[in-house]
């Protein structure tokens, strides 16, 4: 059995974790802390997407849809059932997993290309339905007043999450759970099967692997995590609009994964930090007026250049640098 984390990675993660826990002490402003939460959200989001895109190699376009529908699940059902924070997240996780199975079965039928098309259809159609079903979702009027996370601690203590800092500390454990799930899946026998399916599907089937089952597993787990994340988002911003399902998010996720380095934990983490922090910093600190439109053009060009000329991404670059510095092998 391979270790869950390599030694080098463990250091990287422990340092990252300590820094993550201390950050709110250093940057106390509300803006800085909300950027940190956004970064955390994109770390989870990108990791969930990378399971499918990086490890099994099936690109799908429905990640923002599962995120958005997970958010709507909490927004619409949460107040009625009164599950509390964990219950809401779990409900979104379960529902999105079921939905992913339903979407995956027909979409996987023919080839990976039809899978991409099927998920694109699912994504566009979900957005249309959510925008038009005004009686249920409020359409473009959004769902407002989603309850904030509320915990009843043993001994009758009531605790409601309200400040940005409290949300941040609520998110950090979720990031760690995601990293563990990501690693459990990708370093075990399942992870090696993922790679086998990605590299050569026919050989993998010849070795007795059912490729469909593993593609489906990665897709469903990714969708479930994205759904749970959507639930967090709903309880964090307390307002959910149809734009949460926008396809634009897919581009951001693809850029994080491909520029960071597909199928590598460190690459995806780096990508997520860089591509959420930088644009926000540019917008908030710099005097340059970078609109989302400029940002999308820039992202598109970077993605195109990276996919064409440097398919390994940053991770490969970091790896090469390290290899040059010291020839330690682990």
């Amino acid at each position: 059995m391979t270790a869950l984390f390599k030694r080098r990675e463990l250091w990287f993660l422990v340092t990252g974790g300590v820094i993550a826990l201390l950050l709110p002490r250093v940057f106390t402003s509300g803006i800085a802390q909300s950027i940190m939460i956004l970064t955390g959200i994109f770390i989870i989001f990108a990791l969930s997407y990378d399971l499918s895109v990086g490890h099994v190699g099936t690109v799908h376009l429905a990640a923002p849809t599962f995120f958005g529908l997970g958010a709507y699940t909490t927004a619409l059902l949460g107040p009625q059932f009164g599950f509390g924070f964990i219950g809401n997240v779990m409900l979104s996780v379960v529902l999105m997993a079921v939905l992913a199975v339903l979407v995956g079965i027909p979409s996987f039928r023919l080839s990976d290309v039809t899978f991409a098309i099927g998920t694109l259809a699912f994504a566009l159609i979900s957005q249309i339905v959510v925008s038009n079903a005004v009686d249920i979702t409020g359409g473009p009027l959004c769902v407002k007043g989603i309850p904030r996370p509320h915990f009843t601690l043993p001994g009758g203590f009531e605790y409601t999450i309200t400040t940005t800092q409290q949300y941040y500390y609520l998110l950090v454990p979720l990031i760690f759970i995601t990293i563990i799930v990501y690693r459990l899946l990708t370093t075990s026998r399942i992870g090696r099967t993922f790679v086998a399916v990605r590299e050569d599907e026919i050989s993998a089937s010849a070795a007795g692997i059912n490729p469909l089952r593993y593609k489906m597993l990665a897709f469903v787990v990714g969708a479930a995590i994205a759904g749970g994340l959507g639930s967090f988002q709903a309880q964090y911003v307390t307002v959910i609009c149809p734009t949460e399902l926008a396809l634009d998010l897919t581009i951001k996720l693809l850029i994080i994964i491909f520029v960071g380095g597909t199928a590598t934990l460190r690459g995806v983490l780096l990508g997520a930090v860089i591509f959420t922090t930088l644009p926000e910093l540019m917008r908030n600190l710099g005097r340059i007026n970078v609109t989302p439109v400029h940002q999308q053009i820039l992202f598109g060009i970077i993605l195109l250049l990276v996919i064409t000329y440097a398919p390994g991404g940053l991770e490969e670059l970091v790896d090469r640098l390290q290899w040059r510095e010291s020839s330690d092998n682990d």
Partner: protein
Amino acid sequence: MEIFAEHLLNGLTQGAFYALVTLGLALIFGVARLVNFAHGDFFMVGGYILFLLQSTKLLSMPYAIQILIVVASLAIFGVIFEYLVVHRILERSWRVHLVATLASSIIMVNVALLIFTSDPKQVPTPYLTTIVEIFGIRISVQRLIVLVTVILVYLLLQWFLHNTKTGKAMRAISQNRDMCRVVGVDLRRISVITFAISAALAGLAAGLLAPLFAVNPSMGGLITLKGLTAVIMGGLGQISGGFYAAFILGIVESLFAGYVPGGFAYKDVISFGFIIIVLLFRPQGLFGRKIGL
């Protein structure tokens, strides 16, 4: 009855629109084995070129010439796209194709947003409001032009694929790429020509149909999806199957919007239903199996 005929005509026009998009997508898929997720944005670009032609009041030209200019510019645009994006990734995996064309799509959409803002632009033609009556059915001349042109273009394309050397080469590549390379078919040249034709068809669609809708930067995504739906329905990469499927999709959408209460808002959902049903029960396409164009 008259209402039914009107919905049917609407559906036929819509189907003609999807057909032009589908033909372009199927050609590229057949020849280059590439699903172009930026294809709908070619339409959008064509729509804005038409808008620019109309808004320059200095040189007011007849509608036919406007269309020709749009088609020609799109053909050039297709060649540029082939050189800048496709050429470098053609031999790579389909994942790379998907991400690269999707990135191109996002660039096009946002550049259009930057230049033209998100306000929809109208590109009216005088034929929109001219109504003729055929067999008791009232139809605008614009729609009549659309239907006739699309059928002519389809026949022309079929003739081209079966009777010219280039067309035959395209069909041969779609059947066996490696063998074509062995016998000395210039794959590069054929790829460029295919992209020019494909984009020109999107340009023709824009010239003919943008006047019926308004042009806005983010319209491409749904158009790509409709084209891909028809491509899947017709069997991946089959020209004729995709062409008929496009009309079926258009007519079903139009009837659904007309007869199901509140159906208009949800008519786009049908394409998803079609994809699911076709993939579940007839993954080889509605019209049986055939390899190549």
